[in-house]
């Protein structure tokens, strides 16, 4: 057992830190720290900066343009990006679709799509969830019927994050209506400019436009956009979901969030003393910090095991649950810290805008973030689903 990083790992951390110091635009890190959105342009810009450095695709094999980092290096990179308030890399093309194409896509698909993910030409979004399906993905209803060398797609997807910026969508569609639930599903790549596609915004409870419905009416998709084999899409979908789980613990986000809470609680006065000195608030912060210290080590244990070739199993479900609980607890503390100034509806502060936010520095976005991040325990496999998985594995398949 050794809790310290090797000299090489420390040097790598230094390299990442220097890069971020130099290349991360200040207005961008300010926006992230203050909880403001970046818009498409912001995301594109950061994407391009990373691509130029060759650090855009840490999880890709080097043959496809990945960085060749091991799990610990990827962790260090993520940790430093969070600490520096770098924007989150939009994951749909890079972390979700790309691994599927790299494993199951044809050579032609790999050659065509992967470079366009890196150079930003394609902005991907996901077409997994459907209304009424929730965590029960396999019950999806959007169907694709083969007609000649096209599929005709009809149906509706939902919870499509940043679909308003995307020009491509990867979709799970039902190609065999008679097969049992998880069979008869295929994995299709669809150009969002195809006629018959309509993107409708969903406004979340904090007033943000971050997810969408995507409607398909007789949308013609060339058969060469099928990934792998017809009716085998469920296999690829599960593979994708496993990869979605990287950085599932969100340690870096929690650490940055906790720092922000402390900053806010140092400046907010409560009965004539900084709030951070109030024993009840201090206890909340300390317990979250203690929980996070432990979870961070659990995360490193799993990363370290992965680095030595062990596949993460049920541990990623445990990290998902604990990680989201901690992040949500931190969001709760932040709203408490803001006091009465949690009340304003600061959607402009979140989405960008010119008026200065209401209230002292750091208070404007916290209540909205508290509500927005209720999604953490719902989306990406709800925490209840994760507990079902844990029980199934640990209770000897009796679940």
């Amino acid at each position: 057992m050794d809790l310290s990083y090797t000299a090489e790992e420390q040097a790598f951390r230094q390299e990442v830190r220097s890069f971020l110091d130099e290349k991360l635009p200040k207005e961008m890190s300010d926006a992230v720290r203050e909880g403001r959105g970046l818009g498409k342009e912001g995301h594109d810009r950061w994407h391009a900066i990373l691509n130029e450095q060759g650090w855009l695709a840490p999880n890709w094999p080097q043959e496809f343009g990945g960085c060749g980092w091991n799990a610990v290096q990827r962790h260090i990179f993520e940790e430093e990006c969070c600490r520096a308030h770098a924007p989150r890399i939009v994951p749909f093309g890079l972390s979700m679709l790309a691994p599927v194409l790299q494993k199951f896509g044809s050579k032609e698909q790999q050659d065509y799509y992967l470079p366009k993910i890196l150079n930003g030409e394609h902005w991907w979004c996901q077409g997994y969830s459907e209304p009424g399906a929730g965590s029960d993905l396999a019950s999806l209803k959007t169907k694709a019927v083969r007609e000649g060398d096209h599929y005709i797609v009809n149906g509706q997807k939902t919870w499509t994050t940043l679909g308003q910026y995307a020009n491509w969508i990867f979709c799970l569609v039902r190609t065999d209506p008679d097969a049992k639930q998880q069979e008869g599903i295929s994995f299709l790549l669809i150009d969002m400019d195809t006629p018959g596609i309509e993107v409708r915004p969903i406004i979340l409870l904090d007033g943000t436009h971050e997810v969408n419905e995507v409607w398909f009416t007789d949308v013609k998709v060339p058969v060469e956009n099928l990934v792998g084999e017809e009716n085998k899409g469920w296999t690829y979908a599960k593979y994708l979901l496993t990869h979605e789980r990287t950085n599932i613990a969100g340690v870096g986000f929690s650490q940055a969030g906790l720092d922000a809470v402390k900053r806010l609680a140092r400046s907010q006065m409560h009965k004539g003393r900084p709030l951070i000195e109030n024993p009840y608030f201090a206890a909340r912060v300390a317990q979250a910090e203690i929980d996070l210290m432990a979870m961070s080590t659990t995360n490193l244990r799993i990363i370290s095991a992965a680095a030595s070739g062990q596949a993460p199993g049920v541990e990623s479900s445990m990290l998902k649950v604990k990680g989201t609980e901690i992040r949500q607890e931190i969001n709760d503390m932040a709203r408490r810290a803001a006091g009465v100034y949690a009340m304003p509806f600061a959607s402009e502060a979140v989405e960008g805008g010119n008026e200065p936010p209401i209230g002292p520095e750091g208070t404007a976005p916290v209540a909205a973030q508290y509500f927005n991040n209720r999604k953490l325990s719902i989306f990406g496999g709800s925490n209840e689903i994760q507990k079902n998985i844990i029980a199934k594995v640990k209770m000897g398949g009796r679940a």
Partner: protein
Amino acid sequence: MNFDLTEERQMLQDSLRRFLSDRYTTSVRNEILEGESGYSADIWGQLAELGVIGALFSEEDGGFGGAGFDISTVFEELGRAGVVEPLLDTALLGGGLIAALGNDSQKELVEEVIGGAVQLAFAHGEPTSRYETSRVETTATVDGAEIILKGQKAVVVNAEAADHLIVSARESGDADSTDGISLFLVPRDTAGLSMRGYALLAGGRAAEVDLDGVRLPETARLGAAGGAYSAIADALARAEVALAAETLGAMETATELTRQYLLTRTQFGRPIGTFQALQHRVADLLIELEQARSAVINAAGHLEGDARLRDLNIAAARNLIGRAGRLVAEDSIQMHGGIAMTQEYELAHIAKRIVMAEHRFGDADTQLERFLDLSAA
């Protein structure tokens, strides 16, 4: 001992519940949320006509209620329907303060409030006062027959719509002394008074109010110079009972929406309400709901008595409801899943009302401290 509502209150409850369930639908309310004024003048007028505002005032003040259980009955219903109309601000705080301190001429406003003709706002909190009710740095300086107000007021709910603001200002004493605070009735268009308005996350609107040498006649003062604190404390006590009852009502709706959703929504081929893990969580919510209901009864029932006992029961209720409310709001969203994350869904608004109520007059931790202070007293 008797835990039944009087016949009058039962009738008020029934008629208000019926009115809100008929007229204050999700779509009507969502339109109000998008609107400019933060509330619906139409709904307001009808509430006044129904006698809902009058129920919050004693007969002496021109109403026909005004006791703790009148307030809790009305606000529980408002909470159930997620009503954003500013009854707490115009009637309980604004109207209540004028009724308590005003002279006969000032008290004419109370009648207009009860009739639904006037909107008020209580400009009391300041940018650094947080939840401290005696912390007032805004100053009132006598200049001949005039008074000059200088200072900033924070998150003044309903300020833009208010015909008059009731502004607290210090005439003497330290920044957080209970002595030396006065209240002034300030017409919104008074020179030197300016505001920056904004929507609130859970509905309604508020403003940051700037008092840049606002000149008022001495007759604008409510009650004796420097002696307003005790009336403020009384009005806030009434407002906290109201807020606790409102949150209870919202918790009832959140739990009921969840119960209904679990019975109708199917997943993996069966209603998700048949999954035992969710059933036990609903049972937990129902248990907390009964706790919250009793806490509101305790607070409302002690509103008219000894001030320490009153505040102890209020702090207890608000602490309990702060904790239980968070559980109900978060678990209701969680058990619904994605649908509850969308702005237009009823639960989204209800959950925001529940959680954001903690940010008026002190969150659960602040109420716990207050309970401890009062217990030691």
